């Protein structure tokens, strides 16, 4: 038997306690990609986002609804680019240099969502997400999974990609 076993057992005990405490202390987090549409900020769960690309070389496709901006070829993969502003009840103003395509996926379906600008990637506590009660009757509420209020009072509407993709298919 190791001469130091008496001490080592104490150290192991303390280590186990720390791990246990750590588990309780660590609150589940969520990473969100924040982007702007009109004057509002929206969020998509980072795990649903594959990449962000500049809005260029867009090809319009005939016989598609007005919210389909077109298609782009992103390194050999042709992607639909969707303008979700109409679905969200936002004005469809012209796009500037800051516009980006956010390639998002849900259950095997992938599409580029047009953003007027990408703001930042943040990490928030899951407990800080609130249900979208305030806006539930509006278009934004229909496609929101939750709302996050930041320290500067900026509201972020976290989009429900499944609801949005389903609505856009119609």
């Amino acid at each position: 038997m190791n001469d130091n076993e008496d001490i080592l057992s104490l150290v192991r005990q303390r280590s186990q306690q720390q791990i246990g405490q750590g588990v309780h202390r660590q609150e589940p987090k969520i990473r969100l990609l924040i982007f702007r549409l009109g004057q509002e900020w929206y969020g998509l769960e980072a795990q649903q986002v594959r990449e962000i690309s500049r809005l260029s070389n867009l090809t319009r496709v005939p016989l598609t609804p007005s919210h389909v901006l077109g298609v782009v070829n992103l390194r050999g993969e042709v992607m639909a680019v969707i303008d979700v502003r109409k679905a969200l009840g936002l004005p469809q103003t012209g796009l500037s240099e800051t516009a980006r395509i956010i390639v998002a996926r849900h259950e095997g379906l992938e599409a580029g969502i047009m953003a007027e600008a990408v703001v930042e990637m943040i990490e928030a506590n899951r407990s800080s997400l609130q249900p979208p009660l305030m806006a539930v009757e509006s278009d934004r509420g229909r496609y929101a999974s939750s709302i996050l209020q930041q320290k500067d009072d900026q509201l972020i509407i976290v989009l429900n990609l499944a609801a949005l993709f389903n609505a856009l298919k119609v």
Partner: protein
Amino acid sequence: MLSKFESVKSNLKSTQDDSLELLLVQVGEDWVGVRVRQVLHLSRFEPTQLVPAQAHETLAVPPLLGWFGLEKRPVLDFGALLHDTPASPAPLTGQIMLVENERMILGFLIQAAQEIERAKVADLYLLPALIEQMLLRPAVWALWQRRPDELVPLVAPDAAFDPAHRQALLALSRP
């Protein structure tokens, strides 16, 4: 009716040496590709060659511009069909593309057609699933990577025509 994928396959299967001939057609500010074998005839078009559609005719078939030639072939506004809008007002100039649709010959008025180009099958892409599900009519069957920065939608003109308008057009075509 063939599924979209089968339709793409049948379009591709019949090509020789893994390529196909495409006629590039201008629609508004955009260009689309039409398989040459789907076009019976392409000719210059002058407004005087057209007997304009009457109000009741455009009400029944919104993209109808009028009637062409001794055979009284219906002439449809190709741009209006592809953008799902009523026919454009005059002046009507450009070219006329004759296409067969279920034993009926339809004329499609186009703004312009470039020369025929040969596209490699390897440069064709299927439509993204989301777009395919949103198509108003199954007329766009693939995308052609013409240049590194240019995709061209490939369109089957006969499928751009709304089947609901076919009966109306048949009734109007009767002497």
